[in-house]
């Protein structure tokens, strides 16, 4: 029913079409059952990701923003098949990873990696740094201890860590350094694709910029493709080529970064952008302050999921669900009344 939203040809610009598509997500759904009652019957579902389609081109950084609980992490995980999809497919280099099994899946793990938000929780406190970084090599490569060690040194230098400290436990490293360890682990196998799930959100600004620089550097050097999940819009803007905005499990807007930030199409995107305090004093802009909280994904509002908070909502919004459609060249939004130029 939503074939139309399947954007096979994401950008009207022919150039983009010519580029190789690495990840092609089609109508992906991920529902978590809600157990209730005497026999733990499933009485409902948390629609964490609900019918999302997107494509990521080789070498590009796709930024994903949205409020807490809107399904960003879930989407990232399902794309990596760390969780099974409820429905839909994820094509990686043209192959559906949710159909893979056994050996293929193992090989897939070499191609796709993830970097996490929490610099404390993502490293096993009982492992030495060299074991953490060497773990993927141990699992996937038949390498001797010495070879692994050499590679670990190489990786640590690549991410700007002092390799002489590889014989230490993670608790001796600062947040930024730990994040680098996590990055070193992720790139150990030369993956093509990395999901960075809020990779810099927990870091202080001064360290955050170091890590952003590192990620950009690695992307250039290793030709990585990123799915960059963040709630810091400025960071997303800085690093991403294209940006997707999610709301309550739905993708509400996708577009080239510059244009999306300059003139958002979806009222939610606009609200999100205006809600961010800018480090420019005296410019207390009239912002669109959304009312209320994000509704529960367990029972999302009918029609457009945003209509309960949307300042521009009309009757139609509560009845008909808008589809993610190309509103302008290279830009899609799921809104009945997109903010086309000049009428914000």
């Amino acid at each position, binding site marked *: 029913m939503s074939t139309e939203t399947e954007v096979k040809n994401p950008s009207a610009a022919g150039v983009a079409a010519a580029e190789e598509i690495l990840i092609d997500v089609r109508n992906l759904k991920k529902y978590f059952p809600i157990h209730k009652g005497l026999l733990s019957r499933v009485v409902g579902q948390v629609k964490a990701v609900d019918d999302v389609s997107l494509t990521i081109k080789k070498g590009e950084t796709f930024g994903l923003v949205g409020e807490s609980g809107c399904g960003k992490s879930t989407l990232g995980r399902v794309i990596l098949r*760390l969780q099974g999809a409820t429905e839909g497919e994820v094509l990686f280099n043209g192959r559906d990873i949710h159909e893979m099994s056994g050996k293929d899946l193992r090989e897939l793990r070499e191609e796709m990696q*993830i970097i996490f938000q929490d610099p404390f929780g993502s490293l096993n406190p009982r492992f030495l740094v060299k074991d953490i970084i060497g773990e993927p090599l141990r699992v996937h490569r038949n390498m001797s201890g010495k070879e692994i060690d050499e590679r670990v040194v190489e990786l640590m230098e690549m991410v700007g860590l002092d390799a002489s400290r590889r014989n230490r436990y993670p608790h001796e490293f600062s947040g*930024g350094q730990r994040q680098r360890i996590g990055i070193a682990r992720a790139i150990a196998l030369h993956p093509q694709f990395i999901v960075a799930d809020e990779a810099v959100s927990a870091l202080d600004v001064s360290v955050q910029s170091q890590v952003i620089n590192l990620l950009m550097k690695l992307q250039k050097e290793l030709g990585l493709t990123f799915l960059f999940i963040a709630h810091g819009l400025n960071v997303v803007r800085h690093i991403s080529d294209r940006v997707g905005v999610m709301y309550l499990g739905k993708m509400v807007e996708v577009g080239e970064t510059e244009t999306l930030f300059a003139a958002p199409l979806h009222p939610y995107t606009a609200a999100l952008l205006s809600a961010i305090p800018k480090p420019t004093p005296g410019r207390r802009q009239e912002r669109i302050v959304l009312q209320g909280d994000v509704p529960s994904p367990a029972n999302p509002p009918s029609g457009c999921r945003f209509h309960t908070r949307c300042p521009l909502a009309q009757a139609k919004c509560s009845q008909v669900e808008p589809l993610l459609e190309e509103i302008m060249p290279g830009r899609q939004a799921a809104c009945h009344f997109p903010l086309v130029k000049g009428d914000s």
Partner: protein
Amino acid sequence: MSEMKVEVHAVTGNDPLLSVPTGLPPEPRDPSTEKLSKRPPGPWRMLWSKFSRNPYAMTGLVVLTFFVVMALLAPWIAKYDPSRIDMMFPNLKPGTDGHLLGTDELGRDIFTRLLYSARISLLIGFSVALTSVIIGSIVGAISGYFGGWIDTIFMRFVDVMNSVPTLFLNILVLAIFSSEIKYMIMILALTSWMSIARLVRGTFLQLREMQYVEAARAIGVSSWGIIFRHLLRNASFPIIVNATLMVGSAILSESALSWLGLGIQAPATSWGVMLSNAQEFMLVDKLQAVYPGLCILLVVLAVNFIGDGIRDALDPRQSMSKTRRRLKQWRKNYSKSGN
């Protein structure tokens, strides 16, 4: 899952000792000035350094070591055969005739018997703790990691085990089956692994949500690899604390069962057996009942001190309390806001 139980018994969590950053060295470092740094003071060393500063724990360690050494060296220390009867010299007073603590009603040397009893009591204590740790860890780990119906089955089973008083179960089984030491160990272990299972399960439930588990999964580490290589290692400290305390309770259980006449059977001897014997002679010689009881008390105290020592060494709040104490001291000397 909806049990509302809060695992209070448990020392859970990824241990705070490791997640509290201590001295972060400034980042830029000249690699040339520093050779590959030595093996770091790992979690064990850190644990030890805190542990060794706890006087109670260290006393416990010394006492326990003393008993273990005495038990191990019993044949060399004791001058007598523990079951050697010398009917010429029953009920000697302590100190007479080279009998350090005197003799019992059959002229057996009490000190010697205490030493040999220590062997059995300690053997049972440690073996039971070890066995239940193994059983409990496996059940708890599988239950906590996989969750779902496996968890449900295991936990209902634990519920069943927990609903029948352990002592009753032990008595029942020992009364039905024979009470050889190996069975005794098995039975005690089979009735005491539940707390470890719950603990490990609780810890695993928490740990499996950690991002490093997901990272391991993303790398392609198998479930068993995650359970045994990654998680069990992180659950090890709370397990150790619990196991230590279990040594004590196993020794107590053994003595109780032996006292009831269901445990160790003569001519083998344990502290419980000695107590049970001595009770008959209470009217004749009260001291005979005092020695084995004291031994039990001391060993179990020692073991509990050690267990608590480890727990405290792992507990960041303990350092808080210490802080408070230091603070008091400091305030006394300097503070302007002293009150």
